């Protein structure tokens, strides 16, 4: 703390160098005068007094030197004089400077242009539809580390009673599934989504279709949508893949679609290999066998602010709190609903 303060003062010292320099000369001069006067009072002649004072004082310049050393930041002052020197040198050889600057400018310019094209074509993620009305809903439980995934009973209650959104969709925490048949078995990353999830984001499959509502029910038809890169790598970009069955975790699932390239999940930027319907039970009560933690996205009704939705959702959770199992009531006491809007098309988390 002490040294930080000193550093700030020293930086100031470097900036106001000239003013402080005159002040110091004044101050030392004054010191010398007072000493001389005292000497005269002690009985010396004014000549002797002056001489004695100067002798005792020591070299005025050496004092100034050591004072300067600690007043400013020598590094900063050296750098500034180096810079002045460099500018003077460059001024002398204009032709050389011109050539160098031109070369650099062309190089940087070409690089930037190329990167902008590559970025737009290959790297940028797909924009989401109405991103300014999409918000991510999470819950913070004060006694637990921050969890961004609300429990499914809350999600179901919001879906049942909420008035502030026109769609509320969820996706799972992701997981690893084993793909067998047709070549080497492989562990692939995938996630579960609710039936309307892709549709809400405005994502249309490149091949095939999105999940149907009836596929997203407990015991719904076993279907799967493939990620674009995974489809290219594992299935050689087979355009006739839709309708074929693949075996995941020992269970046959029919491929109904392939995602467009560039689709990434809004909260973590993942490109999942495989999407399957979540098949969440719509039960708003807490049962161990239907309980899940789900990442939740809402699409606001026109004119509704994220804060309004947050208030409504918090109220819904509060009103049902007494029916929760006792172990959850303690854990979720003082729980807060948190909403995160999209900024420039992606979640600001």
């Amino acid at each position, binding site marked *: 703390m*002490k040294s930080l303060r000193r550093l700030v003062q020293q930086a100031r010292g470097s900036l106001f160098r000239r003013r402080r320099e005159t002040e110091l000369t*004044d*101050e030392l001069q*004054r010191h010398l005068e007072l000493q001389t006067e005292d000497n005269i009072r002690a009985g010396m002649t004014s000549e002797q007094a002056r001489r004695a004072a100067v002798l005792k004082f020591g070299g005025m310049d050496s004092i100034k030197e*050591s*004072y300067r050393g600690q*007043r400013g930041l020598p590094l900063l002052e050296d750098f500034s004089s180096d810079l002045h020197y460099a500018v003077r040198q460059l001024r002398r050889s204009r032709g050389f400077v011109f050539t160098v600057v031109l070369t650099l400018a062309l190089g940087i310019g070409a690089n930037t242009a190329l990167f902008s094209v590559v970025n737009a074509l290959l790297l940028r993620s797909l924009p989401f539809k109405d991103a300014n009305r999409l918000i991510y809903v999470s819950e913070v439980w004060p006694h637990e580390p921050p969890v961004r995934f609300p429990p499914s009973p809350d999600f179901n209650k919001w879906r049942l009673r909420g008035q502030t959104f026109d769609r509320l969709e969820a996706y799972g925490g992701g997981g690893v599934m084993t793909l067998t048949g047709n070549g080497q078995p492989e562990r692939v990353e995938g996630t579960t989504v609710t039936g309307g999830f892709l549709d809400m984001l405005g994502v249309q499959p490149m091949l095939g279709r999105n999940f149907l509502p009836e596929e997203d029910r407990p015991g719904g038809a076993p279907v799967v949508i493939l990620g674009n890169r995974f489809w290219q790598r594992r299935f050689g970009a087979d355009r006739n893949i839709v309708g074929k069955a693949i075996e995941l975790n020992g269970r046959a699932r029919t491929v109904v679609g392939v995602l467009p390239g560039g689709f990434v999940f809004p909260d973590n930027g993942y490109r999942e290999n495989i999407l399957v319907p979540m098949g969440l039970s719509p039960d708003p009560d807490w049962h161990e066998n239907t309980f899940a933690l789900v990442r939740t996205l809402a699409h606001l009704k026109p004119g509704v602010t994220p804060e309004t939705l947050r208030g409504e959702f918090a109220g819904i959770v509060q009103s049902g709190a007494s029916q929760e199992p006792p172990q959850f009531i303690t854990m979720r006491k003082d729980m807060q609903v948190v909403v995160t809007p999209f900024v420039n098309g992606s979640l600001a988390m």
Partner: protein
Amino acid sequence: MSDKTDVWQGTLALMVLKTLDALGEQHGYGIARRIEQTSGDLLSINQGTLYPVLLRLEQEGSITAEWGVSENNRRARFYRITKRGRKELAAEEREWQKTSEIIARFSALGEESK
């Protein structure tokens, strides 16, 4: 003048703070004279040491300085101890007390064995 002791590094800051604490506002020359007087003229304050110490204390915020008018109507830079400086002083004094106690004990050790 040669029989006077030079002030050790580090102790001068303590003396400056203590002097300002006792005198209130004082200019550099006044501080130097006062320290010399207090020491019974055993110490001679070298200005080349005093002004850098004043600057350091000012930078650390232990003292502040302001231009004012001295007794005989002349411009001088007056130093004053700050709250932070008083805290610093108390800490330094404790530290110094401890050190001198330790030294005293070691001196006593030699005398016992005589």
